[in-house]
Structure formats: structure tokens, C-alpha cells
């Protein structure tokens, strides 16, 4: 379980160098007496790498410092309604340095709160992926299913996530399944509709090839439809994971229990503004990591060779 909380944070750092491709470094012929060429070139390569990383991250760091500075000054005035960043840090040191603290009831470290929320998202989002892709393929393939279901889905997808909560509480009677259902119903539409678009956008020529080769249904599905639709699916998955993360926070404020959403609500009820702010930072960071994970998975799948020899 610990790994789950550590992993996303770890991959933020991994993600940054992966994005920044090193600029090609042209090494001039080494003059006599200079260190060996390979050493020079590898040093230059490292220097080039570091420079590109600096170029990419420096503006963000500067901007962040600037914004924190403005915030610090603005909220240091007497009578300011929100705490300045230094006070937030001082107030929440315990929360920051002891993420896996265990107290009574819902009094748990931020790590546990996030894990509880992530678990709900994981279940709801997985269900949404399976159902969204399966229904998307069906509706994309069958004109009848498209005509029958598309208008209904277009209406249903406009229902905001939280509007589903009362009816889902009524149906499931328990908090956890209701929250998971809200995640599911939020994430399923972008996945489903993007899959439909993907199937509709399979070029006619690919279909013609399949017909000339007389591919069977399953062969067509695995060899043509799935690879051709994967980029669209991942667009849907990315939108879906972002929306699920938004929805779970909102749903948890209402259902209570352990979870980062309720943690925020609870902190508000206890007037612990610093705790709310630090929780918001975590929510944003986790959401960012989730988005990047899906994007990276999509890129890897799109790139990976499909059939071995």
C-alpha cells in the first residue's frame, strides 16, 4: 500500500527528464593535448542535458517562488482571511512529515486519506474503462446500437457527477459503493464516446484490407480495430481520470469517512485553513501524476511493437 502513495510522487521526478530531450551536442575535433575526445563529449553531453533540464524547469521554479512571495506578502497583513505560505508550512509540518500517521476514526495521515480516495478511483475508473471500451466498440461498430444509444448517452453525460450521488446512495445504501459509482458514471462517458469516435475514424482502407484478407471478427478486432482505436481510447481515459479525480473529492465531502475530500471538509468545519491548503496541494499533485501516468501509458502502448516474430 505504501508503494501506491510513493510511486506517483516518484514518477513526477522521472517524468521531467523524459520530457526534455537533450539537445544534440556537436563536438569539435579535439586539439592536440586536450583530454580524450570521448571524455570531452560525454562531459559536454551531461552539461547539455543539465542545461536543457534547467531551461525547462527554471521558469517554473522562478514563477512558483514569485507567486508564493506575493501570497506571503498579501496574507501577512493584519486581518488577512487566509494564512500565508510560511504559516501553512508551520501549521502542517506534522501532516507533511507524517503522512502515514494513524489516529482514531478518520483521524489519519494525508497518505492514508489519499490512498483511500485513490482506491475508490481505481475501482470506479477500472470499471469505467472496461464498460466504456466495450460499449464504445459495440456502438462504433453497429449503426443500430449507435442510433439507439447515442442520444441517451449524450443526455446522461451532461448530468454532473454530484447529481448522481443521492440516487446512487439510495440504490447502494452504503457510502463506498456510491462513491465508486459516481466515479464510474463520471469517467465512463469520455472513455465511451472517444472509443466510438475512434472506431468511426478507422480509415476505410483498413477496413478494405481486412475485407480483402477476409479477417474474421476477432482477427479484425485485435489486429485492426484495437490498434487503430487505442489513441482515441487514451484521450478518453485521460479525460476520464481527470474527471474522476475531480468527482471523488466532491463526492467524499458529502459521504464522509476516510478520504482526501472529507479531510478537506472536516478541516473546514474545524477552521483549520492551513490543512485545507496543504490538502489542495496534494490533490493537485496527485491529479497531475494520474494524468501523466495515463498519458505515458498511452504513448508506450502506441509505440510498442504489436506482434513478435
Amino acid at each position: 500500500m505504501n508503494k501506491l502513495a510513493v510511486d506517483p510522487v516518484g514518477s513526477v521526478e522521472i517524468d521531467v527528464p523524459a520530457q526534455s530531450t537533450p539537445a544534440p551536442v556537436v563536438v569539435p575535433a579535439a586539439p592536440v593535448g586536450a583530454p580524450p575526445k570521448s571524455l570531452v563529449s560525454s562531459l559536454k553531453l551531461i552539461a547539455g542535458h543539465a542545461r536543457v533540464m534547467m531551461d525547462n524547469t527554471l521558469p517554473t521554479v522562478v514563477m512558483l517562488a514569485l507567486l508564493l512571495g506575493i501570497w506571503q506578502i498579501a496574507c501577512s497583513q493584519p486581518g488577512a482571511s487566509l494564512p500565508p505560505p510560511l504559516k501553512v508550512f508551520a501549521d502542517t509540518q506534522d501532516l507533511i512529515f507524517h503522512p502515514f500517521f494513524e489516529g482514531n476514526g478518520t483521524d489519519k495521515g494525508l497518505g492514508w486519506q489519499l490512498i483511500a480516495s485513490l482506491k475508490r478511483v481505481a475501482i470506479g475508473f477500472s470499471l469505467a474503462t472496461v464498460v466504456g471500451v466495450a460499449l464504445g466498440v459495440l456502438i462504433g461498430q453497429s449503426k443500430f446500437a449507435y442510433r439507439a444509444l447515442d442520444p441517451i448517452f449524450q443526455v446522461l453525460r451532461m448530468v454532473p457527477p454530484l447529481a448522481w450521488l443521492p440516487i446512487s446512495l439510495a440504490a447502494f445504501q452504503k457510502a463506498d459503493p456510491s462513491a465508486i459509482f459516481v466515479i464510474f458514471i463520471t469517467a465512463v462517458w469520455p472513455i465511451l464516446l472517444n472509443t466510438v469516435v475512434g472506431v468511426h475514424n478507422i480509415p476505410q482502407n483498413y477496413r478494405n484490407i481486412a475485407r480483402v484478407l477476409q479477417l474474421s471478427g476477432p482477427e479484425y478486432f485485435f489486429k485492426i480495430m484495437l490498434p487503430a482505436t487505442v489513441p482515441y481510447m487514451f484521450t478518453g481515459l485521460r479525460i476520464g481520470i481527470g474527471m474522476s479525480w475531480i468527482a471523488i473529492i466532491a463526492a467524499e465531502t458529502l459521504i464522509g469517512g476516510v478520504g482526501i475530500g472529507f479531510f478537506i471538509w472536516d478541516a473546514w468545519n474545524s477552521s483549520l485553513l492551513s490543512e485545507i491548503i496543504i490538502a489542495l496541494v496534494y490533490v493537485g499533485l496527485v491529479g497531475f501524476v494520474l494524468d501523466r501516468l495515463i498519458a505515458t501509458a498511452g504513448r508506450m502502448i502506441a509505440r510498442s511493437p504489436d506482434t513478435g516474430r
Partner: protein
Amino acid sequence: MLPLKHLSLEGIGVTFQTKAGAFTALRDVNLTIDQGQFVAIIGHSGCGKSTLLNIVAGLVESTVGATLLDGKVVDAPGAERAVIFQDHSLLPWLTVYDNVKLAVDKVFAKTKTKAERHAWTLHNLELVHMSHALDKRPSEISGGMKQRVGIARALAMQPRVLLMDEPFGALDALTRATLQETVMEIHATLKNTVIMITHDVDEAVLLSDRIIMMTNGPAATIGEDLAITLPRPRKRLELAHDPAYMTARADVLRFLYDRFRHPEDQAA
């Protein structure tokens, strides 16, 4: 008894139902093609050339008439009538090798062993001079190379008829010339029946045994059927001044630009 025809189109007509009403694309197309013949179909755009090719491929159904290949009615697509598409239509997520292998695995699933299918895939890629790029993706090779792979994929299916839909239309003139050489080489070796759609008069005369000229659509049909009896192997440079070549070329040009000018030109 008459000898069995290899490929025959008998009284083909195609009418599409459109929003504006029925649209007749083709009418009364009768054509018999012998085994091993290289036939070019030429005509202005909108004359139904592609429709005609798609009927032979089985991708489009004719409204009236029938297509027979070795005595059997063509009513669905099949690997014995391989198609080379203008935009090559390679699957972008597969390598050059895998694109051809997909076809080989499907067509020879029961008749060749795994090792034989591998060898056959390599053999066909060698035929089009693409052995050097087996592990490349379509996005990593040039347009001409993609079309070579498309040809290899079609040849690998060992089709009785090879159908080419403006195969070199999207290529530059130099690449087109080398691919034309490749196609002539392959046709000389394999002696398969080929139907090729083209816009290019020189290409049609250089490659084919016979040029089918289509009248303008709608309701297009065969306007003229010209036999090209130039001896093979044909050399581009030598033919440039060959009187027979020039006569054939002039015949086609006269048909296209005198007797059946493009409808848009006539309107202008």
C-alpha cells in the same frame, strides 16, 4: 465448347442511391481479360474507374451484370484478388515485415508452415527491394518505399488477379519510374494478371498489353480498347522514339483530350 474465360465482366452496371436520387456510375461494361494480361484502365476522374476496380475486388457490388473469375462469380472480397491501394494503406502500428506477414499468415494459415511463411514474407519483400527495412514502421520510410511494401503485401497473397488503384499517383516522377520498372520486372517473372488504374498515359502505354479507355461519367462505359503490342522487355528510353509507342500514346491522348475531354474543361 468455348475455352473458359479467365476474368470476365459481363454487362456490369452500377447505380448508387444518393440523396439527389439514383446516380448511374457505370453501364454496359463488358470486358474479358486473359490469364497473365496487363490491363490499364484510363479515363478522366469521375469516370468510374475505381468503381470498376472495386467491383472486381468485390468491395463494391454491381447493380446489374456479373463478374466471373475462372468461372466463379465474384461477390465478395478475397485474397485471390489482391488490391494495391493508392495510399498504400499499410497499418502504421506494424513494421514493414509485419504488414506483409499479416497477409501471409492469413492466406497461408493452413498451407504453409511457420518457417515457410517467414521465408515467403522475406522473399516477397526482396522482390520489391525492401529487405533492408524489415523492422521499420511505415512512418519511417518514404512514400515510394511504402508503395513497394504495399506491392509486396499484395504479391505475397499469390493472387490470381492483381488490382492496382492508381498505385503511383501520389509519388514523384522519378520514384514512379523506378516503381514502374519494378512492376514490369515482377510481371515478367510471375506472369500474373494485372488490372491497373492510371491517369498517366505514358505509364499505361509502357506497362500494359491493353489499354481500356473509359468514357466520361455519369453512366460511363468502355469507350475504346487498345492493344499495345510492343515487345517486352520494354525500355523507357528506347521507347521514347519508337513509332509504335508514339502512335499508341497519340491514340490514348486523342481519346482523352479530343473525343472525351474532361467535363469541367468542356464547361469552361
